[in-house]
Structure formats: structure tokens, C-alpha cells
């Protein structure tokens, strides 16, 4: 019981992470894959922020009231990671838009089928 109560944040983090991974693997839609990746990302953020928390601590903003502060280092890492995360997501989405325009589909399986057909035609011509 002690283990469960002391670690519940970590448990949920792993569950969320696995759900994100499940979306990435199971779904063949590229946009949904990106959403799964973002879920995975947020679960890692929660993991880091949970590490940084100190019981009875206050946010790392210096005041006269307290001496115990939570760890500022994970906060800095995650703050920049969030902004970089959105930048990479936008590049991914731009790629997906171009794939849609080239293939008429954003479904991974359909795209693979089209690619296979193209290869087949090329071999025939050769």
C-alpha cells in the first residue's frame, strides 16, 4: 500500500506513456500518430516535474516565507522542451500536409500500398 501511494504519479505516467505508444503503433493515420507522440511527450514532462517536487516545498521563486524550494532544473528543461516540442510537431504536420497533397491520403497502409504498386509498375517497364 505504501509503495502504491508513494508512487502513484509514476504509475499514471507509465500508463499514459504506454497509451501514447499504443496510439503511435496501432493507428495508421499520421495525424493521430502525432497526437500519440504528443501524449507520450506530455507523460515524460509529468515524470520530470514529479521528480522536481519536494514535499512541503514551494515553487522556485524566492520569497522570505520559506527556505524549501522545489528543484528548478527540471522546470527549465521541460519549459524549453514544451516549446521545442510544438516546433517539431508543426514540422511534422507540415510534412503530413505535403504527403496528403502528393498521395491523397494520410493513411500509412494506403501510402505503402501505393508505393508498392508504383514499384511494381516500374519493374514491369524495365
Amino acid at each position, binding site marked *: 500500500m505504501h509503495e502504491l501511494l508513494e508512487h502513484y504519479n509514476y504509475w499514471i505516467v507509465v500508463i499514459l506513456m504506454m*497509451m501514447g505508444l499504443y496510439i503511435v503503433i*496501432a493507428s495508421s493515420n499520421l495525424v493521430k500518430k502525432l497526437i500519440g507522440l504528443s*501524449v507520450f511527450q*506530455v507523460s515524460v514532462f509529468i515524470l520530470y516535474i514529479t521528480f522536481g517536487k519536494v514535499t512541503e516545498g514551494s515553487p522556485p521563486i*524566492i520569497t522570505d516565507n520559506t527556505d524549501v524550494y522545489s528543484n528548478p532544473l527540471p522546470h527549465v528543461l521541460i519549459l524549453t522542451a514544451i516549446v521545442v516540442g510544438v516546433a517539431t510537431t508543426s*514540422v511534422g504536420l507540415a510534412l503530413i500536409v505535403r504527403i496528403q497533397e502528393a498521395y491523397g491520403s494520410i493513411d500509412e497502409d494506403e501510402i505503402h500500398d501505393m508505393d508498392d504498386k508504383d514499384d511494381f509498375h516500374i519493374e514491369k517497364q524495365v
Partner: protein
Amino acid sequence: MIENLQLLIDVSLLAFLVLIVFASIKMTDLFVVTMLFGIFSFVSALLFLDLDAVDVAFTEAAVGAGFTTVLMLSALRLTQPYENVKHRHSVLALFIVILTGAALFYGIADFPDMGDPNAPVHQHVAPEYIQLTQQKIDIPNVVTAVLASFRGYDTFGETVVIFSAGVAVLLLLGMGQVKCKQEPEENLVLWVVVKPMIALILIFGLYVQFHGDFGAGGGFQAGVIFASGFILYSLVFGEMYARRVVPAAILPRLAALGVLIYGVTGLMSLLSNKPFLDYNALSSDPVSGQHLGILLVEAGVGLAVFSTILLIYYSFSGREVKHHA
């Protein structure tokens, strides 16, 4: 009492997170999945707030819930908003996920307890940062001090990453053009309400930018908030007018200028024989030099983030829907 409340909020927020993701696994309408992802970010930001990470909560709410939602919606406009359920590899995925999950659960057992002040993370660098911030930089917000001064190199790298992401999106999608048929319908109530709201958002953005030394906030958050003001204008009044206010052509230059401000601040200290990004060189008094350096660097970050975010939005929303023949 208070601890019970905190536990209650914490546990219910985590439960909400799991529920939201579970529901979005089952949904096939990607519009709905995107909206659910928006509230997922909201809830996770609330969780960060509960875990003492004020700045992170701020960023996650602005970036995750605000901008990512808008971005995914505008990408969905250009693609198909439905997922084909037939193409799912559920069994394979379940197998991999259960295997990985079991390994991770096994690993978790060795983690230090939550909130343990003697955990290894809290022993090494963090106490020095907190102490040095009080001595050398003298601003209350340790996160801003670490971000802009102690680890200024990293932040410079991240600003460059954001800038290059903007360039990549620009190369992939182009600046886009606006046609009149894309304009939103007339809605007088929205027009009247949104005008003062935009002013409020911009003022709030400035407040966040310059209040970052004392409380939650800073360049990253302020840039996103500022951009979302213009995004709101473009959503309600039409993108044609938004592009007259902030032309798309100046945005890449503004983004580059932001990165340049950051870099030049670093170079200034090289001129007086100090290491790169050592703000003590900026003024005769080291502490006020640090203050000046952090102000300049945050301004550069804010400008770069603002123009990159708005540029990415323009690229997506200005692109015409092309249907594959």
C-alpha cells in the same frame, strides 16, 4: 485537511488524463481527438501547477492547449479529419505496449519516493543554482535565472531550433495566399467582443514578458500569448486583414532578428574578454549587468517565438486545400 485536498485534486486530475487519452484512442473523428488533446493539455498544465512548476504550467497552457490545438485544426483542414479504423494493428501494438509497460513498471519500483527531499536529483546542481541566484543575479524567479543566465547556452540552442522549425515549415508549405472565399461570416457580436479582447491579450503578453523576472512568465510564454492575439484577430476578422496588420513577409526577418538579439548579447561579453553569454560584462556592476542581459535575452526569445509561431500559423492557414486527383 489541506493535504487531503491536494491529494484529491492530484488523483482526480491524473484520472482525467487517463480517461481523456483512453477516449481519444477509441475516437475516429480527428476533430474530436484534437479537441480532447486540448483539454488534455489543460489538465496536465493544472497538474504542473499542483506540482509547484508555475512556469511550466504557464507554458503548457499557452503552447499545448492554445497553439497546438489551432495548429492541428489547421492541418486537419488540409487533410482528412477521419481515421480509417480498418487499418489498425491493435494486437501487435497491445503486445509491444504490454511488454514495454511491464519493463517500465519493474523499473519504477526503484524510484525514490515522490517529494523525498533526499532524492539524488535534489543533491547535485539545484541547491547551488538556488543559492547563486540569490547572491549573483538577485531576481526572485530561479527558473528565469537558470534559463537565461546559468544555462543561457541551452536556451540559445533552443531558440535556434524554434527558428529553424519555422524555416522548415516555410520551405515545406510556403507563405500561402489568402482568397476572399475563406473569409469568416459576419458576426457582429464576435466583432464587438473580440476587439477589446485582443487588446487585453496583447497587454497580458507584455505583462508576462516583463514580469518573468519576478513571477511566472518569460519570453517563451509571452511570444505565444502575443501571437495568439493576432491569431484570434485572423480567426474572427479574416486572415486578409490580419496579413495587413502583420505582413507575412516581415515575420521571417523578425524571427531572425530575435535570434540575432540573443546572439549579439552573447557576443558583447566576448568583446570585453569574458566568456560567451557572461552578462557580468554588460555593466560595471555585475548584478545590474545580469539584469540587463536577462532582459535582452528574454526580449530576443520573445520576438523569435512570436514571429515563428505566427509564421507557422500563416503557412498552414494560408495554404489552399488541394485534393488529389
